[in-house]
């Protein structure tokens, strides 16, 4: 009879044993946990897939920006100012700041602390509403319309793509927060909270290159 036990306390992993009545060996998985955090979970990998897809889309859009740049002598076109730095940079700060409640919500989820999760998710939502609001002002101060020319079109597209992500991120964080208040809450819902945090990080960090391209590329390149 062979069996394998982990070294930690009385925890057991899958057990291989030979049944005395027959020549068949069995691998008993009944002792395994009904879930796992982080990259153990299927949803984590699903979220990673989404990150790869959306990340590729952003990268290609940024590529299109520079391609169009190379085809135009004036960029932005003459008589058009680059987008106002104020609002974009403000949003950069708000987004980066939102990483704090996001990380705290993630940690609270990993400690399965329902009260803390509720608090930090609500704080995340406040930040989320804030950066969506600031985003409106960003659009109003791009200093070009999307129908003006290719420059206007690609700037609006880049900002628009990111906006779709921050808007949907806030929407699904909102639903998750509602769930953590209303229920049914069980332990595996905390894995969902952790993964939501991963996606939130993606949305925050993709702002860095996009911000750089929209606000700084026309100024320094």
């Amino acid at each position, binding site marked *: 009879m062979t069996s394998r036990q982990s070294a930690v306390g009385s925890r057991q992993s899958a057990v291989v044993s030979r049944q005395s009545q027959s020549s068949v060996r069995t691998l008993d998985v009944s002792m395994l946990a009904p879930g796992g*955090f982080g990259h153990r979970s299927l949803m984590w990998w699903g979220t990673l897939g989404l990150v*790869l897809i959306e990340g590729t889309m952003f990268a290609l859009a940024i590529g299109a920006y520079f391609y169009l740049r190379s085809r135009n002598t004036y960029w932005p076109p003459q008589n058009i100012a680059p987008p106002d730095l104020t609002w974009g940079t403000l949003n950069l700060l708000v987004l980066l700041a939102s990483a704090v409640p996001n990380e705290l919500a993630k940690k609270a989820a990993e400690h399965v602390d329902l009260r803390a999760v509720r608090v930090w998710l609500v704080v995340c939502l406040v930040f989320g509403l804030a950066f969506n609001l600031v985003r409106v002002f960003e659009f109003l101060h791009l200093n070009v319309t999307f129908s003006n020319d290719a420059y206007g079109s*690609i700037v609006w597209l880049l900002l628009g793509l990111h906006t779709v992500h921050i808007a949907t991120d806030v929407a699904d964080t909102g639903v998750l927060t509602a769930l953590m208040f209303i229920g049914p*809450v069980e332990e595996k819902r905390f894995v969902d909270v952790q993964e939501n945090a991963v996606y939130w990080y993606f949305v925050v960090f993709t702002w860095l290159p996009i911000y750089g391209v929209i606000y700084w590329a026309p100024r320094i390149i």
Partner: protein
Amino acid sequence: MRDPDHELPPVREDPEQLEQTWADPPGLVGWITTVDHKRIATRYLVTAFAMFLLGGVLASLMRLQLSRPENTLFGPDFYNQLFTTHGTNMMFLFAVPVTQALGIYLVPLMVGSRNIAFPRMVAYSYWLYLGGCLMLWIPFLLNTGPDMGWFSYTPLAELLYTPTKRADVWAQMITFTEVAGLAVAVAIVVTVLKLRAPGMSLNRIPIFVWGMVVQSFMIIFAMPAVMLASTCLILDRLANTHFFDVDRGGDALLWQHLFWFFGHPEVYIIFIPGTAMVSTIVTTFSRRHIFGYLAVVMSLVSTGFIGFGLWVHHMFATGLPKLGESFFTAASMVVAIPTGIQFFCWIATLWSGRVKISTPFVWILGFFWVFLIGGLTGVMLASVPLDLQVHDTYFVVAHLHYVLIGGTVFPLFGSFYYWWPKFTGRMMNAALGVASFLCFFVGFNLTFFPMHLLGLHGMPRRVYTYPPDAGWTTMNGLELVGVAFMTLGVILFIVDAWSSLRAGVAASDDPWQAGTLEWATSSPPPAYNFLHPLTVAGREPLWDNPPDQPIVVGLRSDVRDVLVTHVMDAEPDHRVEFPEPTKWPLLTALSTSALFVGSIFTAWAVVYCAVPLFVSMTGWFWPKHPGETGTQAWPIAHRTLPMPSEPPSGRAA
């Protein structure tokens, strides 16, 4: 080789209870709400095959029109819709979905799992795919089919030159099919990474599964390009942006770069599953492990990578800088090397095996002939000076059909014959199968080989007619004869399939004595796939597993309990409760479709339809009350589920 006297394990699971847990509700409700990967795959396969037939009808109409010079069967407007719809249909609604469908059916079985990862998302993807089919064909039947060519170059596709809704139909159909394809790709990758049978380390993953993984990764990185391109096109047309508008700072070639960045990987997305099918069938009918497993896997992976570096070879005639051209020429030739390695490994496998010729295998022989020609003309096209003569001519039409039909459709037919017993529990008729193959093979060559000559002798693509003194008449006439043979071949296949379903010989679990796990269960498999999930000790488990190879026990049979394993070595990690049949994927697909279709008429559709979409996605996500199946209802005291850094943890279920 499996020992027929091998003792089957004593029944430890209750098949009736498993059936009850895993089966769908009866009737229409079950049909709508199913999350069974086999049922979803079957509907994908049937729909994709229907698209194949419809696309074939369009092709026959084109061949009819071109069979005589200055023919007046169809005018230019309808003809342009014919070739655009044919190409769009075959590339987006047949070739990719049908290969993904085989993956949806077979990958979970081959890795030994009870279902595919994210089954609701896969169910949702089918409805979106169906929406894409309707999005193309209904407009076509209403004379609003796309007419700008299946790659829809700008500025022709811009509003100024295509003032009808045709290009909008095309662009939005792309969105349907890309979202569906991406969803399936993610599901397949996660299934292969996390749901493999214990013991199935990376070097024991079946080649078919590797092929589907490579295809899925390619889809993940390539499809965003065409989604971005079609979004920019629709915005130019409907929202007055100027991405491709030359007069306002836009660029006509931006479209080509974005499209072909997707478009070239797309053809490998279609072809790589074809090679995976070939590897599988060659292995089974050689009755030995594939020769050079590592080389074959590395070839698949490297083809996937290199495939992303070739796209500019579609643009050699645009007058690019020479240095850039040289890079893409070299890369386009280098990509032949991994495919060549696969060819040599297959021949080596056959050489040293005990080959049994059968209907599936005959189609693979056809693949060798047809794809080889296509690959060789591909090397010709990689050569810039030669490409500049034959680009955009019938030479390219010949090449693309030789590689796509040779590389995927021939293996696909072989795969239908091979896996039909598993899917349906019946055998197909060998004689009819060979007859169907011969007709299709002869017809294919008769239709497409002359096109090489037509292209060299001056016939451009996408022309609805040609002058009588061009010298192209005879070859075009011959091609029509080829079409007749191909049609006969397809009809014989349909007859074979139909009669097999009605009265075919019953199939055993493993009629071909193959080695992979899908053959370790009944034909067709039960809803729960395997009575006892298996563990594996080799690459071809049914050949390699010793008689006392452990079976997995301890999964609950009263809930949809699935084993999740580690990425690298497939050691058991934890268990997960899989979703039950649900209406939310269909409802979400309906609201997504409303958003997509509405937005080609008004931008506000994005806003209005976002509401039902949000509602349906919330309904999808919102969990059921744990009740009996619950792990631990709240309030929650402390964490029991393991963190990534911890060993697998156990607790009473």
